């Protein structure tokens, strides 16, 4: 019991210490090897660019990306869950949909942007569609894996208590599949960040991905790296938020 707070503090401090160490190594390497600003600016220069550009450029782009990420993710969660819940009720659906979901999961959806542009034009919702298409399959695949591997004995108990299929599903299958569902949600939020950035680059019209592309093309690599840092922080914050919900939901482990 007494070691628990210590280990918690250690878990937080260890990665922060490693990040600080890497930034120091980055700063020293840039100076020692005289690396060009256009290839890899020093962390101090990236920091300066971040502070100077945050209010006018990076913050609006960050908010644009956050909106796309959250909108896409919030649509992908119920959609992925519904696909998995429905499919899990039919053996044929499980067998047929699983390979399709895996193919979709592995397809980089940003590559479809040029095709979607043909139908939708350059529409802001196109970015959200990309995020939804990228996140939904991974949430569905993991949820479905959880739904179909609930032990028969657990289902038998529900049957012994007179519960029908859907009651049994919500009382046993869903809680039993929670670890896999959260694996899907966490993978989903990683893919959500990647998809949002890819969509910014492919579609344009603002967002951190767009800013990275524009800054790189103007040789403003310090600004590009600053935007990358913010994109990474967004991904980490979303991942941590989902992990926090996971610890609140899965209290029994």
């Amino acid at each position, binding site marked *: 019991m007494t070691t628990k707070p210590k280990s918690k503090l250690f878990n937080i401090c260890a990665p922060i210490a490693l990040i600080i160490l890497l930034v120091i190594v980055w700063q020293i390497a840039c100076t020692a090897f005289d690396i060009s600003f256009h290839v890899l600016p020093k962390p101090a220069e990236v920091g300066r660019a971040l502070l100077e550009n945050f209010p006018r450029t990076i913050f609006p782009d960050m908010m644009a990306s956050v909106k796309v990420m959250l909108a896409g993710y919030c649509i992908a969660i119920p959609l992925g869950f519904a696909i998995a819940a429905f499919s899990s009720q039919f053996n044929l659906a499980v067998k047929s949909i699983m390979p399709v979901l895996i193919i979709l999961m592995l397809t980089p959806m940003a590559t479809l942007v040029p095709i979607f542009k043909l139908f939708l034009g350059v529409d802001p919702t196109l970015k959200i569609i990309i995020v939804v298409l990228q996140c939904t399959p991974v949430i569905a695949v993991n949820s479905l894996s959880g739904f179909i591997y609930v032990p028969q004995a*657990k289902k038998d108990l529900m*049957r*012994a*208590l*007179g519960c029908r299929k859907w009651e049994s599903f919500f009382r046993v299958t869903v809680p039993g599949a*929670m670890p896999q569902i959260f694996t899907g949600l966490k993978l989903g939020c990683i893919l959500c960040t990647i998809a949002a950035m890819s969509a910014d680059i492919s579609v344009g019209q603002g967002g951190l991905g767009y800013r990275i592309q524009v800054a790189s093309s103007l040789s403003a690599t310090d600004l590009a790296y600053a935007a990358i840092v913010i994109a990474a922080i967004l991904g980490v914050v979303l991942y941590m938020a989902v992990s926090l919900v996971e610890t609140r939901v899965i209290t029994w482990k």
Partner: protein
Amino acid sequence: MEKPFVTIENVSKIFQTRNRSSIAALKDINMQFGKGGFVSIVGPSGCGKSTIIRMIDDIIKPTAGAITVDGFTYDNNVPISKERVQKMGFIFQAPNLYPWFTVKQNVMLPLKIYGKHSQEYDEVADRLLDSVNMLGYADAYPAEISGGMSQRIGVIRGMVHEPEILMMDEPYGALDESTREQLNMELLKIWKDTGMTIIFITHNVEEAVLLSERVYVMESHPGRIVAEINIEFDQPRTLGLLTEEKFGRYCMEIENLIGKIDLSKVK
């Protein structure tokens, strides 16, 4: 003779395996259980003992035959209603606890499903937890208690909603001898106090003779009844019976029946 509470008439069960072959688990089973009786079913592994009570509790359906409980004959294609199911309690071989519920929430699960939320039932749950020395672990999760403790929770969960029929599928198999004897005595007390009909599946012949008024002996491949033995001891029964000569004779008779089955299988 008193009208039977549970009747099994010409029931057969055939399971389909994954490679599409058929296994006859039970063939032409006929059984009767009187209201308030304590009947055990003994027999070798795979003789279909568990399948019989699983069919009575409507977990699985028979391939042929009829099951009647309290005057209601089951439809072999449609699950029976929750109102009828809640008259029955089922105790599994394994504890089968849900890891996301605490010990008490697991015990209260049947009450939650049947919408029985009164203070009275809460007290029933506490009393049962106390009877198996688990009241102090009410807020623990299954991962935090031992296998034997989990098994005791699985046992009391089956009876918390005060069913009329309690089916017990080798419930004490994983427990040590002393806990087993303690729970057997507790079970006899609960049976006497509540007047439940108990159908008890066991491998343990002594346990069957000690607890039951009647014992069905089964044979396997396919599962069928080979003997029905009335155990004529007065109530209440105590562990002192174990040393009586008559007790030994009953055990010998049943063991001989099961032994003959094993020998015939060797041939």
